[in-house]
């Protein structure tokens, strides 16, 4: 199409160009001829002048010829006859009352100068000569101005007997060439533009430039002097109606074809999408049919099988081909049940099948039997008419089996619960009713809720239970019961005084079978264990007590001595006072008596303190933990141990960190441990000769062990004795193990159990002497948790 259009267009253009070239050549020829004609006319005029004898007079013929020339050739603006001195002899046109435009100042100079030059040129060649194109400057514009703007001279010499006696000069208007020399019929067809040598546009036949596509040609005029060019451009050809109509028809048809193609494509796509949907749907249905565990079977109105699904085939063990087309009795019917099944089928085919389905036994191909439930419904075809029956068959063998197993499991579970050696009960939090109680519970407490409430610690008041509405109780309002039940079951020990029994009670909230909140309690009788624990505890206490007594006993001699000192002193003071009072000498009470009595009082206090410490240490009190500062306990311990230490000339150095936090301990027990460790240390160093420096000193350091997390209170007893032998260090805490001749072997064992019952630690480390690899003492460390 494009090619055709292009070809048409091309031909058209070629034709246009051809016509243009032809017309251009024609125009050029016409202009050239006109100039030639004018030259000849001027030559005639010059001859006329020659023929007139009197040169001063104008020949009639000359005037007439010149006038005719001017009139016939409007492109000639002015004709002037000049003598050989270039003086004007005669000129045309002449206006009487106004100054000629070419006589105006400025213009006249330009024109005359050029005229002189051209005249000189024509004299030189003795031929007519054309001048240069001159542009004249007009101050004011009038309707002639465009014609007069670009002009050039043409001088024809007047020759008389071989001498040039003057010339006829004509002034051409450049614009006039286009206006008057170009044939007027061509002017209508083309746009003519006059250009100078440099391509500047001087004038044009039509101010409007052609628009759109146009063809143009360019020609140089040989007259005057090849200095003018004409540019010819054709106006676009008038609209070709047939051509346009054809074009639009073609475009229209093309559009229609495209639209048709698009429509077809769209329709194809829609059809494809529908096809895919259909395929998916079919696949889905097939997958559904195949994955369905329910057997499907279709009959026509006569009872012939027309369809079975894979599930049914799998259920019965028969293949599709074996079943389709069969009529009752079917191969999957157990032989002995055929009459019964026939009856059922007849009923079903009459549309009287029960909505709950028909329960039947089917025989598989391998002979095993399954129990099924069959639901029958009418099969309606697309014409809304019944075409047969469709039945769905559910294998209910598994559910039946499961139900039986469930019943068995339930039975087992109940048996276990009933024979459980613990009371299990559930109480509703809404009604306060006993929802469940096992045999142990009923046998022990009867069938009442009282025991449950007792065991639960009376957190639920039976009086309130009627009004008990969990929605009003706490922040759990509105939550389903299941939100409350997961999580912990708490365990506590409860004494029921009326039964004189201890129970370990585990309680938790459960969501009862009806969805309501209920409390479950499992109570185990732990009375015996409790008694055993109590006994063990008492024995432990007894042991700790006797250990303290033993410690005291071991220190008895030292204590007696220590106690004797103040008593002796008091006795001495008193006797001394009595003596003085009885003597004959004058007695100064202030000076002699009072100081002695004061000193005696001090000694009595001293004795009292010792006795108090001993009593505090051996008193048999209930174990009682308190939050206490550690320092007084250490002070009392050191006070007791120091008595023993002094006896053996042993020194106890106590270093206590400032600002120790309080601890949660049993003061008597901790004191027992510290005294015990100090006493052991004294025993370890008492035989060290006094000559060894610091050999008989024991360090007691109390601080916070900051390397631990959480931090703990650390008490260290450091001696410089012989240390503990390798085989003894591992057995230190064994009961009845002792390194001392008269030791019971219970001290450290009890110490450790005391510290461990405080959640602390107790251990011993030897200090190795690097020089001779012997031990140079031993450190016992106690760690106790801080009271936080």
């Amino acid at each position: 199409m494009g090619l055709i259009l292009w070809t048409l267009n091309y031909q058209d253009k070629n034709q246009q160009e051809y016509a243009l070239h032809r017309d251009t050549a024609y125009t050029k020829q016409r202009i050239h001829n006109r100039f030639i004609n004018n030259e000849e006319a001027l030559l005639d005029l010059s001859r006329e002048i020659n023929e007139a004898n009197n040169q001063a007079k104008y020949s009639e013929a000359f005037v007439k010829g010149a006038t005719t020339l001017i009139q016939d050739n409007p492109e000639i603006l002015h004709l002037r006859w000049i003598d050989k001195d270039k003086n004007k002899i005669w000129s045309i046109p002449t206006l009487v009352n106004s100054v000629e435009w070419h006589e105006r100042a400025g213009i006249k100079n330009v024109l005359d100068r050029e005229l002189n030059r051209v005249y000189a040129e024509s004299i030189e060649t003795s031929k007519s000569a054309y001048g240069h194109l001159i542009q004249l400057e007009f101050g004011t514009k009038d309707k002639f101005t465009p014609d007069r703007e670009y002009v050039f001279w043409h001088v024809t010499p007047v020759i008389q007997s071989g001498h040039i006696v003057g010339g006829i000069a004509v002034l051409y208007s450049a614009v006039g060439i286009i206006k008057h020399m170009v044939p007027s019929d061509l002017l209508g067809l083309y746009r003519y533009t006059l250009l100078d040598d440099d391509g500047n546009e001087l004038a044009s036949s039509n101010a409007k430039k052609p628009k759109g596509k146009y063809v143009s040609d360019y020609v140089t005029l040989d007259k005057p002097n090849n200095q003018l060019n004409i540019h010819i451009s054709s106006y676009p050809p008038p609209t070709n109606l047939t051509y346009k109509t054809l074009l639009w028809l073609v475009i229209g048809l093309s559009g229609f074809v495209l639209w048709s193609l698009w429509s077809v494509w769209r329709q194809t796509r829609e059809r494809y999408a529908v096809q895919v949907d259909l395929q998916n749907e079919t696949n889905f249905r097939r997958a559904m049919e195949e994955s369905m565990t329910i057997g499907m079977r279709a009959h026509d109105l006569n009872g012939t099988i027309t369809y079975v699904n894979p599930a049914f085939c799998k259920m019965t063990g028969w293949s599709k081909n074996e079943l389709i087309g069969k009529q009752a009795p079917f191969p999957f019917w157990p032989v002995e049940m055929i009459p019964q099944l026939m009856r059922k089928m007849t009923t079903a085919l009459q549309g009287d099948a029960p909505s709950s389905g028909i329960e039947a036994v089917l025989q598989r191909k391998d002979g095993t039997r399954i129990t099924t439930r069959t639901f029958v419904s009418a099969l309606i075809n697309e014409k809304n008419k019944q075409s047969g029956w469709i039945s769905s068959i559910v294998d209910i063998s598994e559910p039946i089996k499961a139900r039986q197993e469930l019943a068995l499991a339930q039975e087992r579970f109940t048996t276990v619960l009933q024979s459980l050696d613990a009371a299990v009960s559930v109480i509703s939090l809404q009604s306060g009713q006993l929802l469940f109680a096992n045999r142990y519970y009923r046998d022990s407490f009867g069938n009442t809720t009282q025991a449950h409430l007792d065991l639960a610690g009376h957190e639920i008041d039976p009086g309130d239970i009627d009004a008990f509405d969990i929605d009003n109780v706490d922040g759990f309002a509105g939550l389903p019961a299941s939100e409350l039940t997961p999580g912990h079951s708490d365990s506590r020990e409860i004494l029921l005084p009326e039964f004189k029994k201890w129970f370990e009670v585990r309680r938790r909230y459960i969501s009862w079978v009806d969805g309501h909140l209920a409390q479950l309690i499992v109570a185990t009788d732990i009375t015996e264990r409790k008694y055993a624990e109590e006994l063990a505890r008492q024995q432990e206490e007894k042991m700790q007590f006797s250990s303290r007594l033993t410690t005291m006993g071991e220190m008895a001699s030292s204590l007696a001595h220590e106690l004797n000192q103040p008593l002796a002193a008091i006795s001495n003071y008193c006797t001394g006072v009595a003596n003085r009072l009885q003597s004959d000498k004058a007695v100064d009470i202030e000076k002699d008596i009072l100081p002695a009595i004061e000193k005696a009082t001090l000694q009595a206090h001293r004795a009292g303190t010792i006795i108090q410490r001993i009593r505090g240490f051996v008193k048999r009190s209930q174990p009682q933990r308190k939050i206490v500062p550690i320092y007084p306990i250490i002070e009392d311990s050191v006070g007791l141990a120091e008595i023993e230490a002094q006896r053996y000339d042993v020194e106890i150095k106590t270093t206590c960190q400032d600002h120790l936090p309080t601890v949660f301990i049993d003061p008597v027990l901790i004191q027992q441990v510290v005294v015990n460790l100090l006493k052991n240390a004294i025993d370890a160093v008492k035989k060290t000769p006094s000559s060894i420096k610091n050999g008989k000193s024991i360090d007691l350091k109390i601080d916070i062990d900051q390397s631990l997390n959480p931090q703990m209170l650390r008490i260290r007893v450091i001696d410089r004795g012989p240390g503990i032998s390798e085989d003894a260090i591992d057995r230190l805490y064994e009961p009845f193990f002792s390194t001392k001749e008269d030791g019971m072997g219970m001290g450290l064992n009890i110490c450790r159990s005391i510290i461990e019952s405080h959640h602390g630690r107790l251990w011993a480390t030897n200090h190795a002497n690097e020089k001779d690899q012997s031990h140079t003492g031993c450190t016992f460390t106690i760690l106790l948790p801080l009271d936080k």
Partner: protein
Amino acid sequence: MSNKTEIVYVVDDDEAVRDSLTWLLESNGYTVKCQPSAERFLQALNSEDKETVSCLILDVRMPGMSGLELQERLLSEGIPMPISFITGHGDVSMAVSTMKKGAVDFIEKPFKESELKALVEKMLTRARVDYAKADTQKNTQNLLSKLTGREKQVLERIVAGRLNKQIADDLNISIKTVEAHRANIMEKLSVNTVADLLRLALSENNT
């Protein structure tokens, strides 16, 4: 009581006991000097007059040098000071050991005043006797040192019970010479009878 000062030394590490004992003894009119330890006591003793009649009440159990050690030290240095021990409680074995080494007695705390007084008196009496004895001995030695060598030989034989004649034979001298020596001896020792002479000579030998 003699005119000379008699000192009762008390060594006990317990300040209250020491002080109260001093107080008690002073109320009975004794001069008491007390020290807190055996070492201090030995130091102080160096600057005391050895001639003073004194006794020592000593605590058995003390830090540093114990009472028993001090007793041994005094014995070894020949200081004849009567010692009584204070024991806290009847430590029989220790008491026996102290008594064997010449302790006068031991006394238990708390003290009965009468016992204490009796004990101190007993010790001082012994100290006085010892002192007097030492004094006499010293005199005898002084007298004996005045004798010549021949006179000493004669005296030895008189004490041995030899007759003048036998002595003359033993020494190869005449009886007359023996008699002259004998008269000189009696005069130098300022005794009148042979019995006195014998007693003096024997007392010197005993020590």
